[in-house]
């Protein structure tokens, strides 16, 4: 074993069983190079940001409970919609899936840790500082930027110093994502146990490999876009200024070159989680594994040539509209392959409906709905009617919440026994699922009607005829928010007093973390690669 212990450098002299490598208390978490510690921090951080962004959403929904201006002034309302979007996307959803990646990828491919353990620590520890920069912007003169999370020019040029804080926050978030992604790609390409070929990897690893590639490709472009905004604001450049020969629409092109792949950056890891959960509770291998890999790659490639479907109303030539419309509708094919494969996995399976499976099925139904409304929005003539209405809000929340968030819940219930060694409360888990699903649809299903009737988004007031649906939506939002406190309670209860979990609580689960490791997974796993059949 001495060869193995050497991997810990000098520390093994004062004891390999000192799990925290020399630091205790808070310093353990600040200095850790362990993928499980870092994964845990990512997950808790994302939950905190989820609550922060959720409170902002509740203020927004409270204002929209009734026509007229009640609680907040329009400027602050705009700041809330902006920050809600940024916090949820960059603070909650993306870090949640990076947390999953940290916990699971090394265990699923039989690696001792991530390839760059120290850089992994930095990827995480940039996030709290980036989030602080975002939050500081609320307290600057003029407040946080009220420009929408997309940060369109020329509005961004006219904001106060909160905009600059936000720009630097985006830079730090981008650095974090790029370093995290390089780490994930390198881990998957170089750290697999002998015999773990790429086409034998669990689907979750595949989706993250492709997600990480997308991140490395587009985060620098976002950094460029906000840098141009910064220099337009302070150094007299004219990138987005028509008087100087630039174009505000140029910002939109650069932003959405990042923004559309970003949708898949969020969705692909969610697909990966679902591709682990559904086979486990169907007690069948994933149907069409290879086609799943190809479909994921096809989505990633297509995602680079569809960005202008967010810009149909900017005065684009018809040929441009047609190209981006056809390219966008093409994405329905690989996405359809995925949905088909998940359904076919369940077909004639020996199904059981524990909480992870419930969330996975909820994902499947509601993601399909969000996919269909996306298909509708990809069609130029319809999109011109629906642009910037609540129909769009409903569409992307079906993708972001019902797909990404629900799959994160599915994954947390699925792997919590492996992470903590304890079982969650199945009854409470089911309550969490049903309440979340009912309240979610209460919030967002009705927003389709609002959008079709013409209610514009990002406006704190509305005409009287929209009141009924808005009230239902607001009540749903509070129900959904409170339900997430139940989720927090379930997780804390599991950690503190859950029943001991078996090494493999799910009959149909077959990846390495279930078959080769005890529950909870030991602090260091696979220091020597596992032997694979």
């Amino acid at each position: 074993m001495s060869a193995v212990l050497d991997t810990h450098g000098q520390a093994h002299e004062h004891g390999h069983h000192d799990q925290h490598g020399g630091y205790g208390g808070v310093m353990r978490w600040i200095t850790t190079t362990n993928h499980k510690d870092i994964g845990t921090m990512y997950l808790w951080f994302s939950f905190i940001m989820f609550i922060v962004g959720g409170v902002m959403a509740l203020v927004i929904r409270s204002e929209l409970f009734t026509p007229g201006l009640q609680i907040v002034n329009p400027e602050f309302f705009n700041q809330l919609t902006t920050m809600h979007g940024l916090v949820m996307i960059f603070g909650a959803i993306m870090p949640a899936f990076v947390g999953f990646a940290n916990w699971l990828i090394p265990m699923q491919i039989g690696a001792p840790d991530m390839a760059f353990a120290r850089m992994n620590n930095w990827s995480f520890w940039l996030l709290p500082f980036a989030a602080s920069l975002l939050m500081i912007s609320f307290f600057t003169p003029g407040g946080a930027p009220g420009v929408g999370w997309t940060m369109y020019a020329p509005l961004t040029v006219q904001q106060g110093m909160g905009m600059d804080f936000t720009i630097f926050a985006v830079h730090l978030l981008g650095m974090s994502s790029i370093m995290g992604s390089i780490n994930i790609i390198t881990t998957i390409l170089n750290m697999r146990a002998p015999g773990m070929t790429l086409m034998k990897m669990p689907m979750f690893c595949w989706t993250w490999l492709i997600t990480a590639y997308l991140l490395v490709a587009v985060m620098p472009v976002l950094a460029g876009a906000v840098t141009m905004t910064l220099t337009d604001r302070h150094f007299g450049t004219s990138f987005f200024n028509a008087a100087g020969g630039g174009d505000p629409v140029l910002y939109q092109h650069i932003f959405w070159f990042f923004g559309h792949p970003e949708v898949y950056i969020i969705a692909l890891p969610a697909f990966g989680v679902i591709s682990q959960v559904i086979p486990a509770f169907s007690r069948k291998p994933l149907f069409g594994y290879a086609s799943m890999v190809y479909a994921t790659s096809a989505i990633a490639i297509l995602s680079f040539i569809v960005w202008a479907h967010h810009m149909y109303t900017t005065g684009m030539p018809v040929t441009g509209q047609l190209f981006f419309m056809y390219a966008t509708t093409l994405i329905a094919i690989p996405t359809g392959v995925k949905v088909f494969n998940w359904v076919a996995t369940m077909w004639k399976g020996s199904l059981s409906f524990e909480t992870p499976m419930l969330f996975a099925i909820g994902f499947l139904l509601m993601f399909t709905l969000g996919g269909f409304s996306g298909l509708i929005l990809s069609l130029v003539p319809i999109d011109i009617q629906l642009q910037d209405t609540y129909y769009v809000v409903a569409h992307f929340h079906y993708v972001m919440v019902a797909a990404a968030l629900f799959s994160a819940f599915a994954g947390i219930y699925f792997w919590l026994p492996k992470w903590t060694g304890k079982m969650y409360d199945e009854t409470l888990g089911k309550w969490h699922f049903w309440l979340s699903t009912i309240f979610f649809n209460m919030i967002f299903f009705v927003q389709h009607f609002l959008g079709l009737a013409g209610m514009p988004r990002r406006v704190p007031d509305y005409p009287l005829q929209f009141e009924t649906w808005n009230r239902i939506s607001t009540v749903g939002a509070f129900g959904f928010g409170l339900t997430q406190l139940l989720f927090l309670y379930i997780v804390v209860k599991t950690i503190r007093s859950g029943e001991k979990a078996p090494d493999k609580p799910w009959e149909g689960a077959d990846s390495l973390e279930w078959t080769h490791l005890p529950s909870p997974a030991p602090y260091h796993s696979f220091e020597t690669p596992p032997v694979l059949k």
Partner: protein
Amino acid sequence: MAQTATTNPRQHYFVPQPMPWPIMGSIALFCMATGAVFVFNSHHGGWISIALGFMILLYMLFRWFGAVIGESEAGKYGKWEDVSFRWGMSWFIFSEVMFFAGFFGALFYTRVLSVPDLASLESQALLWPNFTAHWPSAGPAFSEKFSPMAAWGLPAVNTLLLLSSGVTVTIAHWALKENKRAMLSLFLFFTVALGVAFLAFQATEYGHAYSELNLKLSTGVYGSTFFMLTGFHGFHVTLGAIMLSVILVRCLLGHFKPDHHFAFEAVAWYWHFVDVVWLGLFIFVYWL
């Protein structure tokens, strides 16, 4: 067990101990970002925060890279770790390529779409009747005269300098593999010198642009794309030259072996990347 470890290089992977440098880097960047916002918005104390953050960053980089160099020289990195470093550096360079791609995209968009569009019949009828599309352009509302940067003066010399520095670094690499240490250090020194000469000429060119050509960062979209693209490139050359100098010092200290010198190669890759970006700049910003 020890024997299997030596016969199979993939038996164990170096997982480093916990260390405080990453969070120190975050604190440094936080100070620098906050300081920069203060400076941009004319508040007091910004420069102090930037300086403080920068010093923390330097200290952190010094300690972190120091630790890595120590581990490398202590022989903790084998073939398996080496492959990780190669993937890591390749993807990092890819992300840098995409950063420049964003700015090149802005340049092409402006030249092909936005400037011609501003001279279209619609714009002429409604906004700027006298504006005609041409490149370089500072846009319809820019009234001062300026001259664009000519390609065949200093920029052409700079192209030669950078291309030859690519050759010298390759010769240095060859010398390292042949274990010709004197030649290695000499050619690495030439590479750094060529990089520094490039930067000096670039600074001269900027001075020329500001004082004689009336070409500034605020000279419409031509000035914006010209200075941002060449500026970010110059910044990357500076970083590359600093990294090459570190490698040169390490060579003089006797680091690296003919079969174990990834840090050298990583910096050489970076240098070639900077070189290729310059070729793109020379063609699309200066020449065409």
